[in-house]
Each structure stands twice: as structure tokens, then as C-alpha cells.
């Protein structure tokens, strides 16, 4: 699944979520403040309305015959009309909001006795004591109704809603303007903090961008790196060291390859020059033979190098069950072109210079492995054994099966190898002691590297053991 655009950047993620949360908290604050402001304003206005009503009552609450409605109406009209035509600004004489107030006086039969011009001709609220609301001229009105028992009249006081609305808005605005300023300041700070907080990451990525295969130095753990990032930097440094090591090993390997390829080339070149300068035909022929040997040797080396390079884990998908003896015959044929004699009922293979000897168990055992790789492995082991053991000697192959492993041993009676050099076996381009060899005998130094790699690919183990009184045992353990 493709990740959301917010999650692809820490900075974006922090800024969007934190500012979103800030906005949400401000919204909640506004709602709560508004709720309480409405309550407070309503209470004040309701109390004011009640008080006005009582003041009116104190004038009007007397026996009905004592009241002069006509006069009262005219006086009221005159008094209230006083200001209705004025402008919208408050003045010494009054306030334009006054026409948002209305008064009605009703008798019990439902006759309207007195009303301000702002009030309608009909009842603004039912004739019941107390607070109520009504709709008139597209406005909501709050009403307060009282009954005067002395003259059995109802007095209705009304006040337009928007007076309160404006007050609420005003007070909310003044209360929240500080909050908005604080939120703005907070947003700026948050963005700066996020930017600043992610700075070490930028610093690290900058340092990483400067690295390449030639410069795999560790990242510096400067004071500016926060302790939470130190494990990250340490892990990166460890990785860097491993990569640097791998690169160094590869570089050394390349150097070794260059050495191994250029040395026979030098010999070829020298021999060619010597041959060219020689006036003796016999001498020239000798040089040509040496050149041929050198070419064969270089060819073998290149083959082995290619084999080593091609050993990839995915080759293992083609494992099958293989008979060890078949494998032995196959790889021996590839190695020497001819098996001189192979008695059908015996366990020996006679090669030109060596005898390979195995036993009945070896003939019967099957291993589950990659056939081609195993052939390469056997070829290398037998090649090594022949190379390092005297002509006419015998190479023994044995197999033992235990609970976990099939253990195959290749034993020769060559000079073996000194204990301190046993560890170097299997390293690329390591060759056995040079003194005993002629130019033809020297190997590529890659055979056991290839064997090691093939055994690794099969999750097996490889051991080299000295044989008494002389010789070398190569022991392979393959998972059974």
C-alpha cells in the first residue's frame, strides 16, 4: 500500500498533526466560552427585564378606575418615540437599541390597552407569568410577563434577541482575541521547534550523502546529536564498517586476481621474448612448450575464477539425490579425460598417476545436493589430492553417516600441510608449500575457495586435518 503523503515526511507529519490539534483545541475553547457567555448574558438581561417590569408594575398596579389608559398610552408613545427617529449612535438622550425593546399592557379579556410602537398588536406571549420567547418581524424576542392582581391587567415586556447576540459576540471576541494571538505565536514556535528538532537528522543525512565507496569513514557523534539518535548513528557506523571491510576484501581480492593473472602473463611474455631472440631451434621449441604450459595455467585460473564468481545461492534450488560413486566417476572423467582402468567389481579407479580407492558404503550412499556444484567440488578435491601427493599413490574416499550429517573424507598421503598453515587453506590464492612443485603442478590457489563456497551454499562444514604420518584429510559434512 502506498503510504499517505503526510507519513512520507516527518516534518510534514508533525506540522500538520500539531497545528491540526492546536486548531481543534481552539475550536473547543470557543464553543465552551460561547456557551458560558450566552448563559451569563441571558441571566443579566433576564434580570434586567424583570426589574424593568417591576418598576412598571409599581406605577401601574393600582385599581383600574384610577388608571388613565388614554393618557398613559399617549405619554408612553411620546416618551418612547422620542428617540426612534434618531441616528444609530448612542447619545446623551438615549440609545438606538431602545427600539429593540417592547412593552404591552393587556386586560383579562384580551384587549390591548397600551403598547409601545415597537410592539405588535397581538399578544407577544401567552398570558402566563414568567419568561418566554416569541417571533415577530423576523426576530426572536425574549419576553417577561407579569400579572397585576389589583387591576387584573397583564404586563408584557419584550426584548429583541440580537441585542444579546451582539453582546455575546463582543465579549467572545475580546476573550478570544488573546487566544488567537497566542495560537499564532504557538504555531510559529511549533514550526520552528519541529524544524530545529529534525536538524540532527538533516545533519546525519548530509554526512551520509558525503560517503561513497572510497570514503566509508564513520559518522561523527558530535555534541549536536541527541542521545536518542546515537544508537541509530552507531548502527549506521557498524554497517559502514562492515561495508568498508567488504569493500577492502573485494579490493584485496581484485589485487590478488591481478597478481595471479599478470604473473603468468609476465612469464609468457618473457618466454616469448627469449624464444624470439634465440637462434637455436631446439631452444625456441622449449620456450614454446613453456608458453603452452603457461597458457593452460592461465586458462585454468580463469575457469576457476569464473566458477567462483558464478556460485550463487539460487543455484541450490536444483538439488537432487546423487549417488556418490557416480559423482566420483563423473568428476574424475572431467578431470583427467581418461580413467585408465576401472575394475567392475572393485572399489578402485586407476588414473594415469594415482589410484582412487573407496568402499562399499561410499558406493551405496546418496546425498541430496546440487549435482553440478558437487561435481565441481569433487573435481577440485581430487585435483588437489593428485597435485599434492606423489605419483602412484592412493587417494582414499570414505563416508560416514551420523544423525545430522553425511561426512565425506578425501585423504591423500602427500606432504600434508603444517599445522600453522591449516587455517590458511581455503583462502583465495593460498597455495601449498612451493618447494615440492614444478610449474606444471602449481594450482590456481582457488580450488579450496570454491570448495568452501560450495559447502557453505549447502549449509555444510569443511575441515582440514593432518594425517599421520603424512597426508591431508579434507572432511566435508553435509546435512543428511
Amino acid at each position, binding site marked *: 500500500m502506498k503510504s499517505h503523503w503526510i507519513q512520507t515526511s516527518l516534518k510534514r507529519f508533525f506540522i500538520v498533526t500539531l497545528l491540526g490539534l492546536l486548531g481543534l483545541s481552539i475550536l473547543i475553547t470557543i464553543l465552551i466560552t460561547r456557551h458560558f457567555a450566552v448563559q451569563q448574558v441571558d441571566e443579566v438581561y433576564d434580570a434586567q427585564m424583570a426589574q424593568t417590569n417591576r418598576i412598571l408594575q409599581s406605577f401601574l398596579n393600582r385599581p383600574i378606575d384610577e388608571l388613565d389608559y388614554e393618557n398613559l398610552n399617549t405619554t408612553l408613545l411620546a416618551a418612547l418615540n422620542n428617540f426612534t427617529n434618531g441616528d444609530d449612535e448612542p447619545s446623551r438622550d438615549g440609545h438606538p437599541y431602545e427600539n429593540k425593546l417592547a412593552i404591552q399592557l393587556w386586560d383579562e379579556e384580551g384587549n390591548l390597552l397600551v403598547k409601545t410602537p415597537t410592539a405588535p398588536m397581538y399578544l407577544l406571549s401567552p398570558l402566563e407569568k414568567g419568561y418566554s420567547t416569541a417571533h415577530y418581524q423576523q426576530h426572536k424576542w425574549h419576553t417577561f410577563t407579569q400579572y397585576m392582581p389589583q387591576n387584573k391587567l397583564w404586563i408584557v415586556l419584550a426584548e429583541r434577541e440580537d441585542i444579546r447576540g451582539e453582546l455575546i459576540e463582543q465579549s467572545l471576541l475580546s476573550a478570544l482575541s488573546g487566544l488567537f494571538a497566542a495560537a499564532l505565536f504557538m504555531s510559529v514556535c511549533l514550526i520552528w521547534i519541529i524544524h530545529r528538532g529534525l536538524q540532527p537528522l538533516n545533519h546525519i543525512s548530509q554526512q551520509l550523502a558525503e560517503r561513497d565507496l572510497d570514503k566509508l569513514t564513520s559518522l561523527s557523534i558530535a555534541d549536536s546529536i541527541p542521545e536518542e539518535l546515537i544508537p541509530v548513528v552507531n548502527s549506521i557506523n557498524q554497517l559502514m564498517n562492515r561495508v568498508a571491510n567488504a569493500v577492502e576484501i573485494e579490493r584485496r581480492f581484485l589485487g590478488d586476481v591481478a597478481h595471479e593473472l599478470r604473473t603468468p602473463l*609476465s612469464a609468457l611474455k*618473457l618466454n616469448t621474448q*627469449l624464444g624470439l631472440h634465440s637462434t637455436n631451434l631446439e631452444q625456441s621449441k622449449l620456450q614454446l612448450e613453456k608458453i603452452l604450459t603457461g597458457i593452460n595455467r592461465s586458462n585454468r585460473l580463469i575457469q576457476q575464477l569464473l566458477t567462483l564468481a558464478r556460485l550463487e545461492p539460487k543455484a541450490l534450488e536444483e538439488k537432487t539425490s546423487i549417488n556418490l560413486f557416480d559423482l566420483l566417476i563423473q568428476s574424475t572423467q572431467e578431470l583427467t579425460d581418461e580413467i585408465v582402468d576401472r575394475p567392475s567389481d572393485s572399489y578402485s579407479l586407476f588414473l594415469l598417476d594415482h589410484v582412487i580407492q573407496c568402499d562399499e558404503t561410499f558406493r551405496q550412499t546418496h546425498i541430496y545436493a546440487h549435482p553440478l556444484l558437487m561435481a565441481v567440488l569433487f573435481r577440485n578435491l581430487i585435483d588437489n589430492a593428485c597435485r599434492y601427493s606423489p605419483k602412484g599413490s592412493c587417494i582414499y574416499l570414505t563416508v560416514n553417516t551420523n544423525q545430522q550429517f553425511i561426512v565425506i573424507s578425501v585423504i591423500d598421503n602427500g606432504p600434508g600441510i603444517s599445522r600453522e598453515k591449516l587455517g590458511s587453506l581455503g583462502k583465495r590464492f593460498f597455495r601449498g608449500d612451493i618447494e615440492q612443485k614444478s610449474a606444471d603442478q602449481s594450482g590456481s590457489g582457488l580450488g579450496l575457495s570454491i570448495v568452501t563456497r560450495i559447502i557453505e551454499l549447502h549449509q555444510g562444514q569443511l575441515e582440514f586435518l593432518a594425517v599421520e604420518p603424512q597426508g591431508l584429510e579434507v572432511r566435508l559434512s553435509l546435512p543428511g
Partner: protein
Amino acid sequence: MRLLLVEDDIMLGEALQEAMSLHQYAVDWMKDSESAYRALKHEHFDLMILDVGLPGMDGISFLKKIRHEKNIIPTLILTARDTLLDKISGLDAGADDYLLKPFELDELLARLRAISRRLTGRADNEIIHGDLQINTETQHTTYKGNPLSLSRREYMILMKLLENPGRVLSREQLEQSLYTWSDDVDSNALEVHIHHLRKKIAPEFIRTLRGFGYVIDKIPATST
């Protein structure tokens, strides 16, 4: 000139030994640094050709080791590694020169001549000693304008003495620069070669100091 060749590759070693012997060098060939070290301890060599990729101790470490022990044998290293770092580390380890494999035989010879030129403080390949004139590149030798036909050994003895004019070289010193270990040395072979040289050049050209050795006298600075 006695030359120590340290090279583990059999083919290259054989070819180098043959080629160098053809060019008037007495070559001893060691296949690893251990035996080369022993050889340097016990014998005198004029030059060393050292392969970098040796089994056991590699060529660079070996060179550092002998330089640390104040052995100043002029050394040319053979290397297959062509990066700048490899060249620098080889020269800094104490090599006088290096040659990248695969190399031309002629270049190797020229570089060896250059090293020995520097060693003897000469400006070119011409050695002039009185009436004797030798071109070390072509090995062409003349005395009073007449070409001399010298055998390989005679040439080597003459060169050795000419490189140390005025210095008495003992029989052993001369023999060491003349013969490798594998050479069969006849007990009076040196006398025979000296005799032939005197006959070809001039009897007084090489002086014998009984009980000490042989010397070619310095030419006194001629005032004009």
C-alpha cells in the same frame, strides 16, 4: 653483477633467471621471503628483483624488514597491482624502482641499469676509464678504440672492478658477484679470467696485491 631474484611463480622465475643470465647477471632465485632473507644474511648481492605477492611474508613487508635492518641492497619490485597507493607503498617501503607485470624484458634491464648507474654515480651508460670504454647497455667494450671480445665472466669481473676503482676487491668478493650457488666454481677460474682480461686489455690494467686481491687503479685527474 650478482642478482637476487625473489619470485614464487615457477614459470616466471625460470624465465627471469634465464633472461637475466643471458644479460651478464649472476642470478640466485629464491621462492619465498624467508629463504631470500637467509640468502641476504650470508651473501653479497648487487641487486634484488622482488615480487610483491609472495607466500608467507609478502614482498612489501619483507622489504620493510630488511630496510629496517639497514640493508641497502638496490631493489626493484615487480607488482601486479597498479593503483597509485600500491606504487607509493612499494616505493615508501624502500624500493628503488618498481615495474608493473607484465613487463618488457628490455624495460626491466634498462631499469636495472638505471639503478646501478645511480648507485655508482654515473650520468649515462658509458663507463670510461683511461683508454677503456664500456657501454653498459650494449656491453660493447673498446680499448684504445679497438673493440674487445669479452666472455660473460670476464665482463662481470671487469665491471665489478670498474665500479670500485682504487678499491682492492678480495677473491671472495669477486667470486660472490660472479657465481651463483648453483655454479661450479673451479678453484683457479678467477685467476684464469683475470689472466685473459690482462691479455685482452693491458697487463698493468688490473693489479694484483698478493694476499689481498685485485684492483683497477683510479685515473688521476688529468690537468690540461
